[in-house]
């Protein structure tokens, strides 16, 4: 028998108070698209669910220098944001490919990364966009770069009493183009077999800076640093991009495995092919916005 209590506080202070009161017996719920499914599948629930949906002030997308995305922002809001589509297309693509309209209407960006599935569709884009997350707790707040946020499959640095209140993307990303590819069997309602996000900046035709992020390529979403290092200062040429793809798909960058959704060799091939394609697309998008 599934049993739990449900609290819907309308301030962060109240959330912290409840988190402290119930300690490990409490769980946070936002859109509930991971939490409710897990409760139903495992027949287990925390003693009390603390809903964040009363914190309506935390649903926003803003730009003032940096890009600020509130901790209760849904994927649907991201998908309908022209700012995101024009300036952070990789994140727009990640969010708009999640589940269905029904899922995206309630599911949040913060929930996607706090759940920390190795396949989380927004994790690659956030890694490629140098995102930082704000974790707020009863004793104050801290900023964590997304590169340090994931500690394992379904594990993050978030403490039990902390709430992810904002995702921040630094202003320098304005000068980058970005793109995300979700390799999946069907166009909709499917988790990625592998995900590839690329962002880059050009100086004439030379790649001055780049980020390559991969999901379902290791226990956590990762950056392919070796491939990025290889690209630095190189021209935007097919042979160069192909080599970056090979490095990204190699054990120097990832630990691919066979799973029900796809085999390691296949994931490697997709990474090899799509790192160059996403790099090209990212580069085209810089030219469009500047």
């Amino acid at each position, binding site marked *: 028998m599934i049993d*739990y209590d449900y609290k819907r506080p309308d301030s962060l202070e109240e959330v912290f108070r409840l988190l402290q009161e119930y300690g490990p017996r409490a769980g946070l719920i936002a859109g509930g*698209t991971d939490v409710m499914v897990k409760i139903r599948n495992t027949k287990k629930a925390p003693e009390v669910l603390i809903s964040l949906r009363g914190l309506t002030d935390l649903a926003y997308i803003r730009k003032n220098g940096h890009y600020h995305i509130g901790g209760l922002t849904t994927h*649907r809001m991201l998908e309908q944001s022209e700012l995101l589509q024009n300036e952070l297309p990789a994140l727009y693509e990640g969010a708009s490919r999640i589940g269905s*309209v*029904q899922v995206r209407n309630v599911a949040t960006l913060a929930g996607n990364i706090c759940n920390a599935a190795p396949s989380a569709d927004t994790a690659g884009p956030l890694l490629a966009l140098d995102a930082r997350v704000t974790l707020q707790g009863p004793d104050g707040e801290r900023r964590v770069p997304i590169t340090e946020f994931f500690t394992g499959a379904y594990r993050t640095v978030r403490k039990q009493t902390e709430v992810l209140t904002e995702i921040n993307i630094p202003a320098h990303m304005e000068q980058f183009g970005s793109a995300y590819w979700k390799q999946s069997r069907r*166009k909709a309602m499917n988790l990625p077999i592998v995900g590839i996000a690329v962002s880059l900046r050009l100086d004439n035709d030379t790649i001055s800076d780049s980020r390559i992020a991969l999901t379902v390529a290791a226990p956590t979403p990762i950056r392919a640093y070796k491939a990025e290092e290889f690209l630095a200062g190189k021209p935007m040429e097919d042979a160069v991009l192909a080599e970056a793809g090979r490095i990204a798909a190699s054990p120097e960058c990832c630990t691919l495995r066979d799973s029900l959704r796809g085999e390691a060799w296949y994931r490697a091939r997709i990474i090899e092919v799509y790192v160059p394609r996403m790099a090209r697309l990212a580069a085209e998008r810089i030219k469009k916005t500047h």
Partner: protein
Amino acid sequence: MKKVSVSFTLNGDPVTADVPVTWTLLKTLREYFELTGAKEGCGVGECGACTVLVDGKAVNSCLYPIPEVEGRSVTTIEGIAEKDGTLHPIQKAFLENNGVQCGFCTSGMIMSAKALLDQNPDPSEEDIRKSIAGNFCRCTGYVQIVESIQMAAKLKE
């Protein structure tokens, strides 16, 4: 098990449900209000048979915790025809186009279509397909459903 009392608007009428706090909106609609139009297919967000509108947005009612409905407005398939029984244009279009076969997916399909057409009265085929991507139909092959929604958009004009 703890109970909650949740007040909201259901198909235009103010209602209160006294149900266990762990119930979903779907369970409350079907078992407390005995509105069985929304169906339970998968129970985990995959099939869309349970789709209803909350404040005008399509959601999977099987994943929607009942305490979250407090103060909101819920529309189900039972609430879209006129009071005198005249069908909604989307319902008419589904009937005329064979958009319904076994009918299990139909309430959800129509609610997703309604959410789309309320926002975008002149959708492209791509818009239609995206808006029903979370509604599975095992009978029709989707073609007649897409055509029904296209016809509904014309009927509404």
